[in-house]
């Protein structure tokens, strides 16, 4: 029997396959394909990729207030004095922040949870940036009067929204949820039953 650490016993290509395989959503076969793609790609491409990987870990951090990814802390939105300090929008992922910013309809600040409550994925409230949210609301962001919970309208998003509503209610903060309904430009005939049902349930009076 030889006693060697696993890393030295495996070839470089094997190590690369294993590294890809550890990434979320990448199975053994996809990992293999990616590794062989890198093997055949020009050396520059591999160098760019490895530089980008290292840089993202060294240069990009989470904003200590909103938890968004940023290269300056606090981030631009948190330091932007023109933002409404009374409204905070809570979102699941940094990508959701970009989506809401594109609408130009929201002028408050954000808080990124980095996930949603999902016990079957091993994620409880303590695994999200909820403690950081409470610190903000009790400290630097005491002016917040309304928290808009903009988690996805699925089971886990709803579980997270209800958890936050029960947590923040006693602080005297209004907690609201994004409206659910028909996508604009959609044809009623083609809307699925769930969406149409919710649009009816959350109907609005015509002024």
């Amino acid at each position, binding site marked *: 029997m030889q006693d060697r650490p696993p890393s030295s016993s495996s070839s470089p290509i094997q190590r690369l396959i294993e590294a890809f395989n550890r990434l979320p959503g990448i199975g053994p*076969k996809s990992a293999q394909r990616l590794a062989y793609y890198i093997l055949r790609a020009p050396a520059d491409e591999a160098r760019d990729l490895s530089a980008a990987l290292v840089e993202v870990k060294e240069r990009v951090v989470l904003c200590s207030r909103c938890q968004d990814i940023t290269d300056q802390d606090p981030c631009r939105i948190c330091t932007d004095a023109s933002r409404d300090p009374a409204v905070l929008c809570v979102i699941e992922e940094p990508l959701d922040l970009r989506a809401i910013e594109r609408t130009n309809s929201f002028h408050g600040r954000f808080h990124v949870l980095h996930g949603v*409550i*999902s016990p*079957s994925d091993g994620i*409880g409230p303590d695994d999200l940036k909820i403690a950081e949210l409470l610190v903000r609301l009790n400290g630097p962001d005491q002016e917040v009067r309304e928290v808009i919970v903009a988690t996805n309208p699925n*089971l886990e998003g709803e*579980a997270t929204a209800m958890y936050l509503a029960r947590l923040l209610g006693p602080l005297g903060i209004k907690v609201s949820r994004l409206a659910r309904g028909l996508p604009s430009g959609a044809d009623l005939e083609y809307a699925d*039953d769930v969406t149409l049902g919710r649009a009816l349930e959350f109907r609005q009076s015509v002024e």
Partner: protein
Amino acid sequence: MHITHLSLAGARSFRRLELPLTPGLHVVTGQNGSGKSNLLEGIALLATTRSLRIANDLELIAWDALRDDPLPAARYAARVHTAVDDNITIEVIVSARPATPGIEANAASRRFRVNGVARRASDLIGRLRVVLFSADDLGIIDGAPTARRRYLDITLSQLDPAYVRALQRYQRVLQQRNSLLRRLQERRGQPGELDFWDEELAQTGAMLITSRAHAIATLNTDAAQRYAALSTGSAPLEVCYRPALPPPLIETVASSTTSLAPKLLEALVVGRTRDIQAGTTRIGPHRDDVAFLIGGHPAGSTASRGELRGIALALRLAEVAFSTARTGDPPVLLLDDVLSELDAGRRARVLAAAFEVDQVIITSPDPDRPAPAELSAASRYRIDAGVLEPIG
């Protein structure tokens, strides 16, 4: 309702089948393994989006499509005429995954379309309703409780889209709640984190329970009468709902969803400590059962083979009537090789039901059973190796 056109491509035994259908009776004869059961399975799949017999969706794709096609997929499609819609087209497309040439597929995904538009499974279920009679029906009576819950779910899903949505949500909530119970068992997290899941489980669970209670009450009355007619001399049949609930709650299952939900929530909250110890949710529709009693005794352990067959027939015939009464539009009847095993009297009773619906598709290994004289108006087909040909 009736199917006006059935189209199967790369589906099980069928490389390509285009079958125009009229209302009325259709008899398909063929040897075992010719694909005649797969034909009815394919139609049932369009009604429920899932196969009744096959757990692995990959097996829904024809083997030669999997071997030869760069993007292997099966397409099940039907044009259906109903009392509400003159003409709707429903499609279930099963694609192999991963769809990467050179890499063997190890799973499959299902997509759905109604009139060419991508829809969710819950929007497709019930557009076509079927009642399938098969030899496997005995398993509903003498098999495991899961077979009885599946029977209820398949029957009720076809009748009520709200049932499908509640069932799908219930199953996801249950999985999350059970995971949380195991986390709490390991002292990770607070019991208060159960609040959301308990409320959701009570809401969706109460809907499933009251739907099941009402359905079983109706089926019981009708199946008992039909069983008495099918099995002269046998003790009477009773079909009883056995909900997995604390005894005080069992009395209230026939009430409304809105009155049951808060009681179910209370029972879930009271049972939390023991659920955490068990690491699983001990009450609720996922543990329901149905009892089939003959003269007060469980049929699964005491009834003869002939009595079991009689119960299965009575239950299916009651289901046909239930489906018709609930929707005002009779379902399509699929009889998978069940007539040849019956004596003339029972065969006549089943065929009598067949004349009360718009369309019946019958398979048989024997061209003489049912005999042409019994079904003079039937269209007849021969099937061999997945190829269907009209006779005469």
